[in-house]
């Protein structure tokens, strides 16, 4: 604890990360209270105030149908974070288990599991998710499914490599000599030693899921209107550059702030938990 505080205080960037993420999560959780126009999250039209540059009470300006961009960004954060949490909640256990088993058991089990992982890794993540979203219907659930499908192999890779090096450690030999079961060795001995790396990667990935999800919706293959989404906001606004710059710049910066925050936080965790890259 003392060491964590020391690292945070000595590194202002890490502290910045903690603050940014605190703000983003706070804004998303209490959007109903903070957003000046909570009703603008949906299909609301206010032509009297459309396409306004940033001015009070429209902090980030309004879009082409007069909705407050600041309010919509807060609600978009909420959906992005939810997506990130759900995707990781499914992808991480799957990826980690496969990685542990492939790395520890070895032999043909390892060969088959890792070649399957290679198949998923050799389709560029965005392309795989795009194809799945296109072929299925672009709903939030399918979005989670598509992003999950492209995400688990990265955890398999990470944990597989960790397991292979942990397997050489004396404590694994000790467990085998004692006669502990494979399940015990894998999940009680090796897994705890992979946790710092996994947690660090998960922190970074919360940012990257937001990034990928926004990329999908930027191409029109993500969450559909009127649900607020940062990627589609940028895509819609890009047609009106450079005059209505706020339409793209603020949602774009919103993505940047969240992902940047998670990256800083992940770096800080890496230092605190002592994880090798």
């Amino acid at each position, binding site marked *: 604890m003392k060491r964590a505080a020391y690292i945070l205080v000595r590194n202002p960037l890490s502290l910045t990360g903690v603050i940014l993420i605190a703000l983003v999560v706070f804004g998303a959780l209490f959007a109903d209270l903070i957003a000046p126009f909570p009703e603008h999250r949906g299909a609301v039209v206010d032509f009297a105030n459309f396409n306004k540059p940033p001015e009070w009470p429209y902090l980030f300006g309004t879009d082409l149908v007069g909705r407050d961009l600041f309010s919509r960004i807060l609600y978009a954060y909420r959906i992005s974070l939810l997506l990130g949490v759900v995707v990781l909640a499914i992808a991480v256990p799957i990826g980690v288990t496969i990685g542990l088993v492939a790395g520890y058991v070895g032999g043909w089990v390892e060969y088959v599991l890792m070649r399957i992982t290679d198949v998923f890794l050799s389709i560029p993540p965005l392309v795989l998710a795009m194809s799945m979203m296109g072929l299925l219907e672009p709903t939030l659930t399918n979005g989670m499914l598509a992003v999950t499908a492209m995400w688990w192999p990265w955890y398999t890779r990470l944990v597989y490599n960790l397991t292979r090096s942990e397997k050489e450690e004396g*404590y694994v030999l*000790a467990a*085998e000599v*004692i*006669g502990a079961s494979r399940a015990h060795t894998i999940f*009680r001995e090796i897994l705890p*030693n992979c946790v710092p790396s996994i947690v660090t990667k998960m922190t970074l990935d919360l940012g990257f899921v937001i990034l990928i999800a926004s990329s999908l919706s930027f191409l029109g293959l993500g969450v559909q209107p009127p649900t607020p989404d940062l990627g589609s906001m940028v895509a819609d606004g890009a047609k009106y550059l450079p005059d209505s710059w706020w339409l793209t710049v603020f949602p774009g910066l919103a993505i940047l702030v969240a992902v940047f925050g998670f990256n800083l936080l992940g770096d800080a965790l890496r230092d605190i938990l002592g994880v090798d890259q």
Partner: protein
Amino acid sequence: MTGLLSLRNVSKVFTLGQREIRAVDDVSFDVVEGECLAIVGESGSGKSTIANMILGIYPPSMGTIAWRGDVLPARRELRHRRAIQLVQQNPLSSLNPRRSVGASLRLPLDVHGIGDRSHRADRVARLLEEVGLPADFMNRSPAALSGGQRQRVAIARALASESDLVVLDEPTSALDVLVQARVLKLLADLRDKRGLTYVFITHDLSVVRNIADRVAVFEKGCLRELGTTEAIFANPQHAYTRRLIAAVPVVADAEVALRNRLMENDDAAA
């Protein structure tokens, strides 16, 4: 007389790419109940491979290993695992850094169903006391222990399953000399008290001289010489044994004299 553990014509061949490496070549010896048998050699001697085969990490390529007269199968039964335990060289690696000392010591008790569940914490405390550590160490992480303390925990873990044979794989070579002396003392005391049998794997002949009953000298996978410690040091038969003894850096004049006497024979022969 058959021993507690008998190796008969044991060989181990590893394949590395297209090469075959004969790590252990047709080795036979017995470990007698209650003795401390030192297995001595340098890197590439095959001593670690022999330890791993005794422990059942992998089976021999040829030959048999028997426990109290029963030939051990490639996949060990739990009772055989329980009977043969291990203390490794590096206690920093052999204790899981993410588990408490108590959890590491409890594992053999849980796996082999030793003692009543509710009394296992007491057992762990007694084990710690037996190796000279306070009972409240069970809540500590290995990182909070010194090298010598960690090695004591590793020894306690080997005792936990109430094994008959303990393989000691360079148990003191990562330790400072003062700590080494105390750990060696502990090992000797435990052997007397519990009637344990040791297979002591090491490259350090000065340690061997003071703890082993018999010595087996290995070079390049072959057993060069096997005899009582007294005999090996008084009158080593094999030139390699003599070279090994002569290479030990020594601190006392009596030791230099012994070394010179051994080398004279070789110089005369050469």
